[in-house]
């Protein structure tokens, strides 16, 4: 294996583990003050002795888990067993979630009811996708342009060519020079980008606003726009990657190991950039500065308008009576589905199963 590519993969694995470990360690302080380990509490609780004790135990476990997984990643030979890398990541996530559940149990006795006062805008509720139709169609335009280019260079495509590479940079998936074989990656790109677009649109239509007025409303609106921009960036990245994979058969002289290494580095950089943006925003935009001075009652209402008992394990929101399809995560940055709503399962099925099925079929 190319030594440069080998080192790149190793750095990629270690980088992902460190990023994930950092996110888990930082998460409790990136949440709204009134949501601590997914429990509704008084905003001053997290600075109390009990709150700090829960945080210390949690972070100690997460940091220890990150160190162990990173050392294992460095000891393993990268690329020989690609599932080792995925296994280490799963192990780190498992350790962190276990620590989270333990911390949550410590915090639960201090839980409070969410604020009973609610407000809602009566007009002008709809939010638009960022950039409008022009920007939202850019990923698809990119894929269409690549399709045109591939069509023009059809004669340069060999009879059989690789379309999937393992973590070691070696091809492990092949296709024939057929319409399905050549345009399969582009089709995958179109499907995945379409799913992300549907999710973005659904967030604008079927997610709850944290407030109608005040700094909380302003942060919520800005955070939602930020998440929509992140989704658009993900679509553009995926369109670029699948477009590049579709172009590769037309470029027989390329180095597949370096190509895979470059994509890995770009993925790592992209993930790191998204992490920085989301950490700066905080859960629900709780760390975003507002243009308005806090107006007392609307500044920090307790909780997120949902009772703690609807949050199973603090991570999964299940409320069949809540019409919201997306709600802000309580632990994590972004949105999660309301699994009490049947449409949530439909979306989950589409987002997970459809790309897998396409990948298998192609």
């Amino acid at each position, binding site marked *: 294996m190319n030594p440069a590519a080998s080192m790149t993969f190793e750095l990629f694995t270690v980088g992902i583990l460190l990023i994930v470990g950092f996110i888990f360690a930082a998460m409790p302080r990136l949440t709204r003050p009134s949501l601590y380990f997914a429990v509704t509490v008084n905003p001053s609780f997290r600075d109390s002795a009990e709150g700090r004790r829960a945080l210390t135990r949690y972070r100690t476990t997460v940091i220890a888990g990150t160190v162990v997984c990173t050392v294992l990643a460095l000891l393993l030979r990268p690329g020989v067993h690609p599932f080792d890398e995925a296994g280490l990541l799963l192990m780190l996530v498992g350790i962190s979630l276990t620590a989270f559940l333990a911390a949550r149990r410590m915090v639960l006795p201090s839980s409070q009811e969410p604020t*009973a*006062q*609610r*407000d*809602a*805008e*009566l*007009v*002008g*509720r709809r939010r638009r996708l960022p950039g409008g139709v022009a920007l939202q169609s850019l990923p698809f335009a990119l894929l269409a342009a690549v399709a045109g280019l591939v069509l023009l260079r059809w004669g340069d495509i060999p009879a059989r060519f690789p379309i999937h590479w393992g973590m070691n940079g070696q091809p492990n998936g092949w296709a024939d020079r057929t319409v399905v074989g050549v345009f399969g990656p582009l089709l995958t790109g179109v499907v995945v980008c379409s799913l992300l677009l549907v999710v973005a649109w659904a967030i604008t239509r*079927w*997610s*709850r*606003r944290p407030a*109608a*007025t005040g700094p909380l409303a302003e942060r919520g609106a800005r955070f939602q726009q930020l998440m929509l921009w992140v989704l658009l960036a993900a679509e553009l990245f995926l369109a670029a990657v699948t477009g590049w994979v579709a172009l590769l058969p037309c470029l027989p002289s390329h180095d597949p190991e370096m190509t895979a290494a470059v994509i890995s580095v770009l993925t790592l950089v992209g993930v790191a950039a998204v992490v920085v943006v989301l950490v700066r925003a905080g859960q629900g935009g709780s760390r975003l500065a507002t243009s308005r001075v806090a107006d007392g009652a609307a500044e920090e209402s307790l909780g997120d*308008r*949902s009772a703690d008992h609807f949050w199973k394990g603090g991570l999964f929101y299940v409320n069949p*009576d*809540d*019409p*919201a399809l997306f709600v802000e995560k309580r632990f994590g940055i972004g949105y999660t589905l309301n699994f009490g709503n049947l449409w949530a399962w439909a979306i989950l099925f589409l987002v997970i199963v459809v790309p897998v099925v396409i990948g298998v079929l192609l």
Partner: protein
Amino acid sequence: MYIVCRQQTMVATTPILRIDLSSQVPVYRQIASGLRILLVGGGLPAGSRLPTTRELAMDLGVHRNTVAEAYRILADEGWLELRRRHGATVLDRRRPASGPEARARWVRRLEGLVAEGLAEGQSVEALASALEAACDALREDRRLAEEA
């Protein structure tokens, strides 16, 4: 005591509906009352489209049927036109002529409200002052709405 929360005036800003889940007043009545205050005060002019029951229920964190019941009450009173999947549209409702029976009904309700307030320790003067302030505020909202 049933406390009427005066909704934010809306001539130059977006109308806001506020409810209190800890109140003993059923939520659907709070929603209907809050909307009625805005409708009477001119905060929601004829032709305005209210959110769908789903959207409003989502933002308030209540069941969709709760909002639907409030909309139905106002539709029965002639304030709203309800269309499936399009939310509710504010109608140009002419002020109905108030006969002696309607006035008597309203006075009985007011007496009940006043009795509740007195039972909770409010003074007659405070209740009268609050009623006068609420009427002044509505009057002012309507004046601003007509000027806008």
